[in-house]
């Protein structure tokens, strides 16, 4: 039977999320998180074994000339690099998590699934436990970067051996992660216990050795995050499925590898600077989604701030909880974040 409605004008409607439509609430939440982040940075600078009051901190940050040199040094040379590293790495991991979850269309995907983290960990364990004097200390992050990148490339090659699919990618990622973690287990179990302990602390994400040059490197890598933000439209479309993306002029065959590369770059930079903090990349995007939904134009900056906040809080709480003992921030994040994550996932069971 022929349809009778023939004169209906076809209205071209953009798919949701095609343009960066900002709502008032989005801007509000972004501002709230930015303010929260600044407040946390100031708080993190002021706490520690040598306490400073907030006024002093603000003075030291804004007008360093007016404050005694010792306090300026403390703030600028000891605490600030660490805090910047925490924020940048958290943001990088979180954005990488957003990418992974969008590409795989799976809320449980994390940046670690590309194999970057396990590759970097194994590289580092080999260098720290088996060949403790092979490389000078400042080259270790670079080595971790190379190791992580190599493993990620390997995972991608394996996943696309018989045609790439997001499901294959994550499953191969799980397999490679399991394989490499058994290699690290091997090293951890039979290595010299002193070296194992220092390696373990590094691996569980600790920030106490970060210096300004590290931050500079990290900041360069963060440009990848800006690139990701510029592709928010692609991410929105990819989430809806390959065919939708294709019909709107996004070629998944090209864009998925590009986005993966960006995710790997972000993750490996973060891992090389602070060690493995895998949970942030899994969790921060979900927290951010509670405030802005799945619109990546807003989600990406929001997730970046949430991730930064998480690592910063984890690190600072780890510093003060059992002072003078410092808990690695990765462990603090897992301890606090895991129950919340379970709660979060319970709400979205579909």
């Amino acid at each position, binding site marked *: 039977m022929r349809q009778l409605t023939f004169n209906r004008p076809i209205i071209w409607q953009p798919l949701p999320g095609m343009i960066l439509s900002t709502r008032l609430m989005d801007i509000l939440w972004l501002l709230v998180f930015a303010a929260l982040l600044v407040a946390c940075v100031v708080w993190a600078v002021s706490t520690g074994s040598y306490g400073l009051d907030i006024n002093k901190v603000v003075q030291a940050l804004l007008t360093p000339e007016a404050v005694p040199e010792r306090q300026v040094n403390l703030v600028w040379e000891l605490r600030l690099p660490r805090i910047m590293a925490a924020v940048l790495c958290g943001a990088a991991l979180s954005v990488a998590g957003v990418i992974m979850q969008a590409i795989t269309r799976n809320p449980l995907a994390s940046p670690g699934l590309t194999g970057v983290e396990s590759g970097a960990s194994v590289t580092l364990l080999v260098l720290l436990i088996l060949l403790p004097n092979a490389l000078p200390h400042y080259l270790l992050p670079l080595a971790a970067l190379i190791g992580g990148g190599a493993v990620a490339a390997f995972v991608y090659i394996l996943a696309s051996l018989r045609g790439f699919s997001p499901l294959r990618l994550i499953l*191969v990622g799980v397999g490679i992660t399991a394989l490499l973690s058994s290699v690290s287990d091997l090293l951890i179990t039979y290595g010299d216990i002193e070296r194992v302990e220092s390696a373990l602390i590094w691996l569980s994400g600790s920030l106490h050795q970060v210096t300004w040059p590290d931050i500079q490197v990290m900041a360069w890598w963060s440009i990848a995050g800006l690139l990701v933000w510029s592709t928010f439209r692609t991410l929105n479309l990819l989430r809806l499925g390959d065919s939708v993306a294709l019909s709107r002029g996004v070629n998944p065959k090209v864009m998925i590898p590009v986005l993966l590369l960006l995710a790997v770059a972000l993750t490996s930079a973060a891992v090389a600077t602070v060690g493995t903090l895998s949970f942030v990349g899994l969790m921060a995007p979900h927290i951010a989604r509670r405030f802005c939904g799945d619109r990546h134009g807003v989600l990406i900056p929001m997730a970046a701030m949430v991730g930064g906040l998480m690592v910063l809080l984890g690190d600072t709480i780890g510093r003060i909880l059992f002072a003078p003992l410092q808990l690695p921030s990765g462990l603090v994040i897992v301890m606090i974040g895991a129950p919340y994550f379970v709660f979060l996932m319970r709400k979205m069971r579909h």
Partner: protein
Amino acid sequence: MNDSTSVSALPKSGGVSLKLMGMLAVGLLLLVVCWLHLALGAKSIDWALVWQALFNYDASDSEQILVREMRMSRLLVSLVVGAALALAGVLIQAVSRNPLADPGILGINSGAAFFVVAGLLFVSGSRSVSVPLLAFSGALFAALLVVMLTGRQQSSGRMILAGAAVAALFSAMTAVLLLVDQQGLEKLRNWLTGSISASDIRKLDWVWPYLVPAMVGSLLLAKSLNAHHLGDMAASGLGVKVGRLKLLSLFVIVVLSGSAVALVGPIGFVGLVVPHMARFVIRNDFRWLIPYALLLGAIVMVSADLMGRLLVRPYEINTGIVTALIGAPFFIALVIWRVR
């Protein structure tokens, strides 16, 4: 529940006698592997001496003591652990209809390990009672978490991811505990990677009361599993209560993998590999698959332990690491060839 009322819900593949012959062959293979396990190691022992130690024991000969006291108990532990893990793998793959499922990959083993470590640090008292119970509760907790995270939709990818997240979570929390208590690390790092050498035969007594009912129970579940294999609708049509079947299987899986963890620590991938090996021989008849898996699991575990001891002798690699090094490539191959 007699045979005339039950529906044999399977394609006939090969006669019963063929399956029995296969079983016999697998049993012989198991005997050979066990023999090698007793005879080879850091110190190879003459075959005649092994025979003597087994049937004509002379307690004054140091080599016979080695066979009887050290290797024998190791052998028994690995037999039991291998069988339990393989059985857990068969059940978990059947119930979740996911060929990639495994107690290790789904985080059940790491949940049990975390509870055991936490319990040993904070609870004092008799280990023989507490360790298995801690392991069971950890395994149950992790399994429920995975079920919850997977949600209603039967997506194998999502389930594996949920398992990976749970496994990562629990191993991170174990790491927290061990960093806080560094002497604990020194003591437990061996057990935490799944080591049969850290176990001994007395620990078997801890888990027998749970393990035997679980194994018998899984045999009783075989018929319902056959029906379940046809799909939920068909199964309920055949009079199987699917919900109850899943719940029972969950308990059996928890007990089986919890016992394995209590004995030797978390060992992964045996539960993944063995069901596929068994299905190579037997298609999907669980009445045969389960006994085959028991034998094959024992073979895999004993040979993994043997390899761990032989590869770097006189040192040894923990069995859990050996199984992961072999099993993980197997998992990846399965993903590449079987997923979509």
